């Protein structure tokens, strides 16, 4: 009964994810795209809940749907010029110009499906046991994170630091000095 219900919820969520993802990448308006993206993120967090990763689900909402989305929206607010941007975007992205992309991605999709489900695999690796229903608490993750995975924490910290410095540097550098025409070089 519970399994059936979970399955139904999973299918509905997955459908929401895929549809909103498709809408995200085909939208012409950035704001619309971002809204669809938020929906995708929320649905993904629901998937995490179903899979029993409640911490990840929480983080997905807080950081992805919260922080990162805010970044995107800030930038969009800075750059968006209403109807002009829309027209520009319609000019840039048109379905007829993306047939090659469609072909390539569908090729990859079918190949991946083929590799995962249709190729013969040895039985030892394909054994999937029933998952334990034990809840993974935040405390468990914290112990793991500051125990065996402490190096990972350091690496993440360094990555964030370097990203911070890079972002500051790129946005700070004066615009005029970047563009050098040929006449200047001569």
């Amino acid at each position, binding site marked *: 009964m519970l399994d059936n219900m979970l399955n139904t919820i999973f299918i509905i969520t997955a459908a929401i994810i895929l549809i909103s993802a498709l809408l995200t990448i085909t939208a012409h308006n950035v704001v619309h795209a971002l809204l669809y993206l938020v929906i995708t993120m929320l649905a993904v967090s629901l998937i995490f809940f179903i899979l029993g990763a409640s911490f990840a689900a929480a983080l997905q909402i807080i950081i992805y749907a919260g922080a990162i989305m805010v970044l995107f929206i800030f930038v969009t607010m800075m750059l968006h010029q209403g109807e002009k941007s829309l027209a520009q975007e319609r000019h840039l992205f048109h379905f007829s110009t993306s047939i090659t992309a469609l072909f*390539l*991605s569908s*090729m*990859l999709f079918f*190949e991946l499906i083929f*590799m995962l489900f249709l*190729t*013969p695999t040895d039985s030892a690796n394909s054994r999937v046991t029933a998952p334990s229903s034990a809840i993974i608490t935040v405390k468990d993750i914290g112990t793991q994170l500051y125990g065996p995975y402490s190096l990972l924490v350091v690496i993440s910290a360094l990555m964030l630091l370097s990203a911070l410095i890079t972002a500051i540097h790129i946005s700070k550098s004066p615009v005029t000095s970047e563009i050098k025409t040929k006449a200047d070089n001569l």
Partner: protein
Amino acid sequence: MTEYASLLALVPLLPLFSALILLFSKLPKLWISIFAVGSVASVALISLFFNVIFWQQSDFVLTASLGTWINIAQLKINFGLYLDPLSLVMITIVSGVGALIHLYSTGFMYQDNDLKRYFTYLNLFVSAMLFLVLADNLLLLYLGWEGVGLCSYLLIGFWYQDRKNNLAANKAFLMTRIGDTAMAIGLFLLFTQLGTLDIQEIQIKAHAVWSLNNDNNTMASLCCLLLLAGAVGKSAQLPLQNWLPDAMAGPTPVSALIHAATMVTAGIYLIARNSQLFQLAPDVLYLVALIGTFTLLLGASAAMVQTDLKRILAYSTISQLGYMFLALGVGAGASAVFHLMTHAFFKALLFLAAGALIYSLHHEHNIFKMGGLLKKLPVVAVSFAIGCAALASLPFTAGFFSKELILAQVIASGHSGLWWAAVLGAFITAFYSARLFFVVFLGQTQLSPNARPTKSMSLALVILSVLSLFGGIHPEGLKSLMPQLDTDGLSTLQHWLPIILPFIAISLAWWLFKTKRFGKPVPAFMQGVHQLVKSGWAFDRLYQTIIVSPFNTLCQVNKDDFIDLFYRLIEKTSGRLHMVFSKFQNGQLRRYNASLILFCILAFAWFISGELML
């Protein structure tokens, strides 16, 4: 003896230093002349001094060393000088005649703007020739040999503004180069076989190595053949003779220098110097005699029909060199060198007199436009007459003694066929010398001279005339070069025919001249033969047809170098590949992305197909 060594060292070095001084300094014309003539004249004085000391001795040797040139492993080459009777005769000729030609040049070339360059080349020429004749090893000899070739090239093309002169210079250089290359190979072969390049050692070792077992004589013949090829190229003998008539493009004193004192005598000297080596190869010696005979007939016949004053003299030089080769071939090296000496006197005289003529007559070369010049230019006429007489070997001139000696040696060696050919050559020689003299100096006056020869020119002419008349003193020191031949057993015919024949030839020429047969167009049926002989038996055209034209055709065909096709294929292939791959490199991020995915797909496909195979 050793006190003379430094004096000997001065002999080739003085003209060399003088050439260097002339090259790097800016002197007025008078000083240039004094330097150039002075250096060669002092060498002539030194060689005269040596002559006085070693008068007619046959067994003296004087050596001097200027240091080491090459010293690696077994090969040790010195700048060593070696003076023996043969090289003494040679340096006397080279420096003596050379000095007179220098003296003459001061008058002849004084008006030329490039006097400095001229005398630099001339001094260098003499220096190279002195190195050649004094060298104690074959490599140093080869250095002089090449130096002589270089200077002849520079001097033949002296008036370089005229393209014709440059072509003549190129021709002389390339033709002699064929011989030089063969000679270089000969030197390598000698060194690998005998382990030395010292000339005296080669003679001794050659006898030790090759005369013991006769099977090895092919190697000796090969060495001698290669050396002979070098000599043939330098001395303008049969297969390689046709550069010499074209070498007339240079100033006339240069022609005199090339023909009399330096350059062409180098080949004679090389064979005479290695006479002991050549005796090991009798076949090659016979070949030398044959080459000489054919060349003397060819040269004499071609000289008979020329109309250009200098070309007549050039062909006569080829013919006289043929006599020397003939003498060398029958083993009479001393006679060859003796004839070389007398020939140097009278040929220098003839050329200088011809130069004086040309100088006086506005560079007119055609003998049929001259005539009646006997009274206008008496000094030139008399000296030219003496030169012609010596060339025709009239009795008691210098040429008579040497040529008679050669003919006697030929008959004594038993080659009567060669003797008849040589006598025929002598007849023709007398004929064309008489024709030359009659046409130029007797008869109607056509051109009147507008300039007199200068004093220095006249002085040189007078000295050379005296030498041509009384220079027939046989250098007795050359005895070692000559095997003892029995010259007493000449029959009456053999004794008197060579003496009488020139007179018959001169009478014939006089008769033809009196009846005005010279200068007339030849009869129609003789036209072809006349043309053939006049072009020096068409050797130029022969070489043009069998060597130059095929080579040019080959060059035309292979203009794009068919081996290049292969490399061009590589280049094109990589270019095409580059074109293909540069499609992926168009600067568009999306294209990069697409190709990345494409190759991912391909890699997965490969993986899947591998899985399916299993």
